Structure formats: C-alpha cells, structure tokens
C-alpha cells in the first residue's frame, strides 16, 4: 500500500549513505565536496519524510546554499586546481575503523534493545501532524528567545573572527 513511499525512502537513504561513504574515502577533495552535496540533499529529503518540512528546506538553504559553497571556496582557495588536484591520503585507517566500529556496535546494541513504545513521551505524545513551521516560529520567539538573541553574538564573533584571521593585513 505504501510501497511507493518506502521505495522513495530507501532511495534517499542509499543516496545519503553511499555519498557519505564516498566522501570519507575519496582522495580527491573536489569529489568529496560534491558527494557531500548529495549527502545533504539526501538528508534534506529524509527530513521531509520525518515531517520536518521547515528543517528540510532550511537544510537546503543553509547547508547547501551556505556551508557547502563556503567549503567549495575553501577547496578552491587551498588547492592548486590549475596544476593538479592535491591528493589527500588517509592514515590510521585500521585504528580509526576499529574505534568507530566499536562505537557503532555499542550504538546498534542499545538501539536493538530499545522498545520505543515504552518511552514515556512516545506513549503519551501524539505524532506531529500537519505543518510544524508555525510552532517552530512561535517557539523561537517565546521559549527560545534568549538563545535566539545570544546566537547573534556567536554570528558576530564568527564574522569578526573570520575577517581578523583571513584578512591580509598582518598584525
């Protein structure tokens, strides 16, 4: 009955995973940046599946429109594209894989043990229905007003710092 939705979900899951793995192993920095793009798109689609449409669109705007563009700029500013792409090798492959798979096993073990219907908030709560955007907006301006204002300080620090650090005028 829901076969189509399931197929689409699986498609985006695979897109996300495959491009994430490719990003982590490729030696070409430009390819890594582009596979990160696919990961971001896949995750954005998954947000929409989790009925977080606003977050999904924000993901496209902030991550793809902002962060990824900056990363590509970073790649271009730091790699001799005209000459030859700088190869980025891996080290500590074995120990890194071991540590990560240990954490993964731990996570999987506990996830498999969970009976989600037992969680108190799942038992009582209702699933989100309809549009969550107005709720997020109201929350930002009421309950989360202080973090919303303080994050302005963070953005200011970032602007200030980026121009201090990357500016050509030396101290």
């Amino acid at each position, binding site marked *: 009955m829901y076969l189509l939705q399931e197929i689409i979900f699986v498609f985006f899951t695979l897109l996300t995973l495959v491009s994430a793995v490719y990003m982590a192993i490729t030696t070409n920095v430009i390819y890594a940046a582009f596979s990160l793009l696919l990961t971001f798109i896949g995750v954005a689609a998954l947000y929409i599946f989790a009925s977080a449409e606003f977050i999904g669109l924000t993901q496209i705007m902030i991550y793809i429109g902002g962060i990824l563009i900056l990363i590509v700029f970073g790649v271009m500013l730091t790699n001799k594209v005209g000459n030859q792409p700088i190869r980025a090798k891996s080290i500590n492959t074995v120990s890194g894989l071991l540590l990560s798979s240990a954490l993964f096993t*731990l*996570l999987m*073990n*506990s*996830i498999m*043990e*969970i009976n989600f219907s*037992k*969680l*108190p*908030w799942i038992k009582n*709560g209702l699933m989100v229905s309809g549009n969550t955007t107005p709720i997020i907006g109201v929350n930002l301006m*009421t*309950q*989360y*007003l*202080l*973090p919303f204002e*303080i*994050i302005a*300080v*963070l953005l*200011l*620090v*970032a602007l*200030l*710092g980026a121009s*201090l*650090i990357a500016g050509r*005028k*030396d*101290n």
Partner: protein
Amino acid sequence: MITLVILALVGLFLMIAGLFDISRKAVFGVAMTGMVAALAGNLYMWDKVPMAYFNRMILIDNYDVAFITAVLGVSMFLFLLSENYFGKIQNYLTEHYALYMFSLVGMIAMISFNNLVMLFIGIEILSVSLYILAGSEKNNLSSNEASLKYFLMGAFATGILLMGITLIYGASGSFYLSGIEQYFTSGNELSPIAYIGMFLVLVGMSFKVSVAPFHFWTPDVYDGSPTFVTAFMSTVVKIAGFAAFFKLFYICFSSVIHYWVEVVSVLVILTVTIGAMTAITQKSVKRLLAYSSVSHAGYMLMVVLVGADADNLMFYVVAYSISSIVAFSVLMLVQEAAGNAEITSFEGLAKVNPLLGFAMTVSMLSLAGIPLTAGFMAKVYILTSVFNAGHGIVVLVAILTAMVGIYYYFKVIIAIYFKTATEERKLFTYNSSSLFKIVLFIGIIAIIVLGICPDIIHNLI
C-alpha cells in the same frame, strides 16, 4: 542576566569604538570598567532567591554567582598583565578586546545554563572566540597550528557532545535540566540510549576541558598560542568548563551515579598520571604548564566523581588559577627578555631579579601542593572528599603522581635558585611595569593567605 547583557554591550561598544582613533589606555579602561560593572551586577545577585530568566533558559543561584565571580575576577586579574600582549597588536586592537568580552558572554551562558540549548551555545561562543585568539599571531606557524588543531578537535568534540544531548533528549523528551533530572530520578527503567547519551556527553565535555585520554590537542594548542591566550585558556576557560561540567552531572546524572562512577574514576586516574608523566620530560616551561594543567584537570574532575561539594571545586579553581597566573606572568616576562620559554632561560633568575624568582617559586610550590600554599589546601579538601566517598585507589594514585609533580616543579625552582645565569642573561632587563608588580604581589599574598586560612573562600556557596 545583567552581567551577560553588560558584557555583550561592552563588546559591541568596543567594536564601534574601533572606528574612531582612540588610545590604547582608553580601550583598556573601557574593557576593565565593563568587567567591573559586570562583576558588580553579578555580585548583586548573591544570596537572592534563585532567579530564572527567559522561560527558565538560565537560572542564577549562588553556585552560578560564585563561579561567574571567579571567571570575571580571574580575567580582570589577567587583563592587568595584558600590556605587553596587546601592545604588540598593531591593527584591530579593539576587535581583540571585543573577542575577549564575547568569550566571557559565552562562559556566563555556559555557567548559568538551565537548558542544554544555552549550554551548547555558550560553549560554541567561547570556542569560536578561542579558535581565533589562539591563531592571532598570524605569521607564527605554531600559532596557526594551535588554531587549526583546536578548531578541528573542538568541532569534533561539539559533534560528539551534540549526539549525546540528542540521545538524552530522545530518552527524556526534554532539554531542560529539570526535565532530564526528572527522567533520571523517576525510578522507571532507563532506556539504553540514555546511557549512551550520558557517555557521549561525558566524552564531549572531557574533550572540551582536556581530560585524558581526550587531552592530546592540549600541549600543542597551549604551546602554540600566544602566552597570554594560553594563560586565559588554562585558567578562565577551565573554570567555566568545569563549572558547566559539574553542574550538568550534579543536577542531571547524580541519581544514576553508579553507572558512570567507574568510567569517571578511570578518566581521573588516567588524567593525573598522564599529565604528570609527560610533564617530566618537558624542557619548555610553557609546555610544562600545559601538561600541569592537564593533571590539574584530573583533580577538578574528582569533584565531578564525588558528585557533591561544589565548594571544593570553587576553592580548587581559584587556588589553581591564581598560582597559574603568577607563573604565567613571570613566564611572559622571561619569554619577552630571553626569546624562548625553555627552563634554561630561568637559570639564575633569583639573582638577576629576586621578585620574579620568588613569585615563580611560590607559584610552583602552590601548583605542586606544598603545605602553607593555597594549592595544598585545595588538594587536601578534594582528596579528603574523594576518600570519604570510598575511592581509595584514586586517592593513592593522586598522591603518587603529586610526588612526581614535585619533581618537575622543583626543576624550575632549582634552575631559578641554584644555577647561575650566563653573562648574557645577567644583563636582561625584565620589563616589569608597576601593574605586573601589583599582580605578582597580590598573587603571592593570595596564595599564602588562602593556604593558611582557606575559609575565606571555602564554604561560601
């Protein structure tokens, strides 16, 4: 709350002031005045009914007032030493000051948080400012490396911390400390993701406060940053980090202490041991102080391990910060004169400049934990409470490593008193302004007074 607003406004004011041509003294004056005003606004909250602001996003009680006072007091103390550091900055002076003010905003948000959103944003404001300050010597490769390593490790730690927060939210359904506390104290069977969340939060916070084995970035970052920034990171930032760490674990997870107490005691043992063992071989005093800050982090973590007695933490951070600042101020002067921070640069310092030699000796004694100094009383309080909580092995390891510590702190003292300076070094003039002398005097007196009658600060909270 008013403290936070004042500091943010002072930061903004300084940035605007940068547009006009104002003197260095005026900038310094504005920053100091701002901090004094913030401190006054903070002390006004002392012993009032705990106040919650903005839908309980932050909640200020005596614990927070005490730690914010420590953060502001220590940074004012440190700013008195800033003349040489800021003197070297030719361009964008006010922006540097503004970054310090904003990092203080972050620390205050971090200490007084009542919701994990505030904790997260506070940590980020602090970290982002520090990444920049660590790299502020743009032409120095070590400074670049410090900045880059700190940034990459900091961002990685943030990711882990956030995963922890998310899993705890998944289990408890709340970001408020009270909601999480309720979930953990409810007595119902806890979801496995709550444990993993707790564990990941522990790892993330350990990264941020440089607890072993997550401390590997510390020596390079502390060594590469400008010495003033190193002093700032190893004192003020540590106070804020541990205040948040203790608050989070004390309020949220103390009811399930039996699940994490063993992990934390292993971390404590590793931290004090690795800190002491690696400090032995160091030839540079700056690196030695970096490793010593790792091993002191182990002692501060013991308070988290006991899960009670915020007084001990308060006393320890104050004693440690004052001793460190005295050590760093001497280091800054010696580094200025000799051009490097090697122990050999300290040889014969007592003859060339007795005040600096004596100040360094007192601070080393205090960091090593020799009786009659503040550092000794701080260690006694913490080790007593750890022993009473039944962690005999931790106390044993701590005492053994403290003895190792005496060895490397005394290496510096021996260099100061029993070695003779080279002819060239005898001619060094240590450019100590009157502000430096005032700080050294206050520091020495505070170390000794706190060592003899610790009750001035202890038992306040």
